[in-house]
């Protein structure tokens, strides 16, 4: 999200599941799709079977994905950036980049301001007291014509590409080996495979998931891959892309609809306190092109914003009241999970609604979450299952130590039905919005989440209507036009997201001709308007439900080119485009880079191919409009200007808990702008007491904290365990199946030991370093064996851009122990 948008313009999987089969090289790093996405992994199998693809896995553990790989290399958790900057250095110094692509479609030739520097681990503008950068200097030189200056010859040392070369120069194979522990020969072998795709003939796909996001520099991990794929020319082509694999069936959907605490649906911005007026908000969102003639599609921002406000507030949103801009809350600071838990812990939160989130198990530092929940006045849990969160107040011995008598929190459980018991849509990783039908009635008194939320809203609304209050307007004026207000249908909501025409829209050429009739569904986001005559709850979804019907119900398996482009299966945002930035599959003149990778090409009068062009369909190649139409530059960004908080180039920072110093810049060990709450500084452990590197992850047999309640899953993987390298087990006299105690600065757990060759003892800075792996999934509720919460151990620090907790890299100690009280010893 937070790195793809600054690089390419949109924050989503750029290609899609079926397209993985078109890859020649599949690099799995920062994810473990065989384990966490076994069904999607079939496309990797297809690529191997029918495209002779090579599968490369880079992971601290030899995973289930690695089990079927052609090449595997280990690395220390939290050092992906060093590895990937090393790969970039390799292809830059060996001239393996796709130069023509890089010059034409990235900002390689753009000239950066003299003021921008990188020294001693810091970029220009760092303020230590604020732990933040002033990012003004991270910008292009702007010419007198108002456009960014470029040097197509790349002679200027201030060109982005030259700055990048200088930046990555430090990441030699030796440095990579020293920091990551990846043997040099394996590293170089991987470099060769990767480099084999920098030519337009072959393509590499990158598959990643939370193995990259859950770090204090998570966004920059992904950013490295985005840059690498641009240097290789692997963006916009079949079998290429940077592909975020989503861990829940509908995570893409919830993200599209405003999951991020500072975003509105469709990645519009939720205003901050600094934007008191509508004019303030729009002022920074004009998105004037930075190069002549560029699309800069976000120039349409206001159309989408106004249409959103009309969808939200209907007639209460007028031009006169700035489309009810005052109804929107203005944020002071992002309210991500860590922030919410910290606020609870500080005793500053009265109530909490946990909907589909088992926060006690899922939050980092379980001990803090437990204390936080106990300080709430009330807690509402909306979930189809019994969760630990709903029972946080129960004492379960060492699995959940709490003095129940002291807890004053009132807990209300609202049973939701499961997804198969309601209709609606899923949006998958590949942005495909697919309708699902109801298969059965929910159990007992359960209701759909939609009905539960509607029930809460209609009651609150009645209270506000009756009693007034400080500012009842946004609630009583919320547009709520459903046949049954207490139970809207998913069909009605999807239409609302798509949007309606409010007044007849006439043809500007011929006022007698009506282009769109009032009351009809908007055909696509191109028809949205800033004058209040259209609505759209989520502009990127527009087109999913039109007068022709519910497009998300389509299930055609026609794939005319055999490239896995099922144009009439579901509806893919935006505008049913399967591969984003697909115009980049052809060179500047519109000719495909190769016949093998032919996708969208210019036929003399228009852009054609199996997909919807991500480009003006009749814009001539000579017009030099860049393929990255969302960016004001028209091209993609190797240098992200000020769009990421922690730097326009990635840099290796150690995890907040690391066994070694940062050998590149000792004074700036870890991400200098990652947010740490005051109380948590003292809760970071050091290697003297916690000498081993730990990481956490999912297992195929389970899905988060749900399936431990299900008998078959519990049979297949019954009990919490930790994976230990053989050398560590030997040192400590631990055998397979023994009980071990794993502790971090924040707490300790007990679990079984799996002693394995698959967890490495790496040589880091010349010293042997053991890596310990601990799956999540277990707790004190369910059918599987009662277990400790793995997140008892994890640190309370998040990514600098989106605050995703650093679940993937921290320090622990390991000791042999005996069974926890209450657990039978076997």
């Amino acid at each position, binding site marked *: 999200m937070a790195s793809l948008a600054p690089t390419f313009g949109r924050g989503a999987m750029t290609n899609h599941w079926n397209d993985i089969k078109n890859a020649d090289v599949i690099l799995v790093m920062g994810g473990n799709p065989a384990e966490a996405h076994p069904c999607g*992994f079939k496309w990797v199998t297809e690529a191997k079977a029918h495209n002779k693809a090579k599968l490369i896995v880079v992971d601290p553990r030899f995973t289930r994905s690695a089990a079927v790989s052609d090449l*595997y290399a280990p690395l220390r958790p939290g050092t992906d950036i060093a590895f990937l900057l090393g790969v970039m250095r390799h292809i830059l110094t060996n001239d393996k980049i796709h130069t023509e692509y890089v010059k034409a479609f990235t900002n390689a030739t753009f000239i950066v301001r003299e003021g921008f520097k990188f020294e001693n681990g810091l970029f220009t503008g760092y303020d230590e007291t604020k732990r933040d950068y002033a990012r003004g200097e991270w910008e292009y030189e702007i010419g007198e014509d108002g456009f960014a200056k470029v040097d197509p010859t790349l002679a200027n040392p201030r060109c982005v590409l030259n700055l990048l070369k200088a930046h990555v120069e430090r990441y030699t194979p030796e440095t990579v080996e020293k920091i990551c522990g990846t043997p040099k020969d394996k590293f170089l072998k991987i470099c060769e495979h990767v480099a084999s795709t920098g030519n337009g003939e072959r393509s590499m796909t990158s598959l990643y998931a939370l193995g990259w996001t859950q770090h204090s520099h998570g966004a920059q991990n992904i950013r490295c891959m985005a840059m690498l794929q641009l240097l290789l020319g692997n963006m916009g082509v079949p079998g290429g892309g940077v592909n975020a694999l989503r861990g829940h069936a509908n995570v893409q959907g919830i993200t599209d609809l405003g999951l991020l605490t500072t975003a509105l649906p469709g990645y519009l911005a939720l205003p901050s306190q600094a934007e008191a007026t509508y004019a303030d908000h729009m002022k920074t969102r004009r998105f004037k092109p930075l190069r002549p003639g560029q699309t800069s599609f976000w120039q349409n921002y206001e159309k989408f914003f106004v249409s959103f406000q009309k969808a939200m507030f209907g007639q209460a949103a007028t031009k006169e009241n700035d489309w009810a801009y005052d109804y929107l809350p203005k944020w002071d600071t992002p309210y991500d999970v860590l922030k919410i838990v910290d606020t609870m812990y500080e005793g500053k939160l009265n109530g909490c609604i946990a909907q589909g989130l088992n926060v006690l198990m899922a939050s980092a530092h379980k001990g803090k979450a437990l204390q936080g929940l106990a300080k709430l006045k009330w807690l509402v849990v909306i979930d189809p299952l019994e969760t630990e969160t709903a029972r946080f107040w129960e004492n379960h011995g060492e699995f959940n130590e709490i003095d129940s008598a002291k807890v004053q929190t009132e807990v209300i459980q609202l049973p939701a039905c499961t997804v198969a018991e309601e209709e609606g849509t899923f949006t998958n990783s590949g942005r495909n919005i697919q309708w699902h039908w109801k298969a059965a009635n929910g159990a007992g008194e359960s209701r759909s989440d939609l009905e539960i939320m509607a029930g809460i809203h209609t009651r609150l609304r009645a209270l506000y209507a009756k009693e007034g209050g400080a500012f009842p307007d946004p609630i009583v004026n919320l547009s709520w036009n459903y046949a049954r207000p207490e139970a809207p249908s998913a069909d009605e909501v999807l239409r609302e997201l798509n949007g309606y025409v409010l007044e007849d829209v006439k043809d500007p050429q011929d006022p007698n001709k009506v282009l769109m009739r009032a009351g009809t569904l908007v055909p696509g986001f191109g028809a949205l308007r800033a004058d209040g005559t259209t609505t759209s709850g989520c502009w990127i979804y527009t087109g999913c439900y039109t007068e022709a019907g519910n497009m998300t119900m389509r299930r055609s398996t026609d794939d005319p080119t055999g490239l896995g482009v099922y144009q009439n299966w579901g509806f893919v945002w935006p505008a049913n485009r399967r591969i984003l930035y697909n115009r980049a599959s052809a060179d500047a003149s519109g000719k495909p880079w190769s016949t093998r990778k032919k996708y969208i090409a210019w036929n003399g009068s228009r852009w054609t191919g199996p997909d919807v062009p991500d480009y003006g369909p009749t814009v001539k190649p000579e017009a030099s409009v860049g393929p990255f139409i969302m960016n004001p530059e028209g091209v993609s960004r190797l240098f992200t200007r000020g769009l990421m908080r922690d730097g326009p180039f990635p840099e290796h920072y150690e995890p907040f808990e690391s066994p070694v110093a940062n050998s590149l810049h000792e004074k700036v060990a870890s991400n200098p702008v990652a947010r740490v709450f005051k109380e948590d500084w003292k809760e970071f452990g050091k290697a003297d007491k916690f000498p081993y590197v730990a990481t956490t992850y999912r297992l195929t047999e389970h899905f988060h904290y749900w399936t431990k309640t299900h008998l*078959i899953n519990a*049979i297949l993987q019954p009990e919490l365990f930790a994976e230990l390298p053989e050398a560590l087990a030997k040192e400590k006299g631990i055998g397979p*199946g023994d009980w071990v105690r794993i502790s971090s600065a924040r707490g300790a757990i007990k679990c079984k030991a*799996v002693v394995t060759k698959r967890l490495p003892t790496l040589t880091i800075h010349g010293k042997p370093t053991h890596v310990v792996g601990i799956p999540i999934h277990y707790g004190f509720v369910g059918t599987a064996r009662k277990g400790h919460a793995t997140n008892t151990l994890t640190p309370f620090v998040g990514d600098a851009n989106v605050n995703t907790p650093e679940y993937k890299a921290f320090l622990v100690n390991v000791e042999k122990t005996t069974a926890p009280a209450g657990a039978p010893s076997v």
Partner: protein
Amino acid sequence: MATLQSLDIKRRSATTEPPPHVRGNAIEVAKLIDVSKCIGCKACQAACLEWNDLREEVGYNTGVYDNPADLSPATWTLMRFTEFDNKGNLEWLIRKDGCMHCEDPGCLKACPAPGAIVQYQNGIVDFVSENCIGCGYCVKGCPFNIPRISQADNKAYKCTLCSDRVAVGQAPACAKACPTQAIYFGSKDDMIAHAEERIVDLKERGYANAGLYDPKGVGGTHVMYVLHHADQPELYAGLPNEPRISRLVELWKGGTKPLALAGIGLAAVVGFFHYIVKGPNEVTEEDDERADQINR
């Protein structure tokens, strides 16, 4: 589990009458398990439990990924995980264990209860519970250590190759569930042809000894494996290199069983019983010697 009228029986345990064979043109089927494509997700195991209504008790972690720890009356298939250090390159070999549906089934040959084990014309070997007397001879007769006797009802259980599904033209539940198509199902000929393609691919990827596991010692099997290291099947959690039925079982079966009163028959029976109670069901030199003596 039960005999299926739509599937003709080719062989029946402890029975000498000729089987019906008017529908003798049934196609021989096979399940091909491509170990090189398996990700060990256990979807096949879950599907087996679902389809056959089996529920094991929730077990423990014993220090490995194999769960439950072993085959049982309620676990007819099980993923067995082996870590193999191949000259500095780690491999994680994941084999789906279960009945191999031998063309020449040791279990059936060893079984003294008439009609407790049958082989259908299509090659599937099935246990018929109502005829099973729970003696456990099948366990010993099996070169793959597959059948398990239930403590609850004293009957033998193992994979049926979803004979009920196959009888109505469906693939086994495991094959249907496998996300990576590591499990193929079809005619034995087609499966061999498909395996050959896979072996070419594996050889190209550097597995010089990739090959098909269809052991001749048991007349071939209706469950076959594609292995990266076909020269070393033992690497895969002890898959036997040259499985064969003990010659004692052969003797017990080979025409001698109905003539149990003849001296040679008696010797065979004694030898066989020794073999049955002795322990592991690998065929030892000693057993073969004993068989040779009896036969002489």
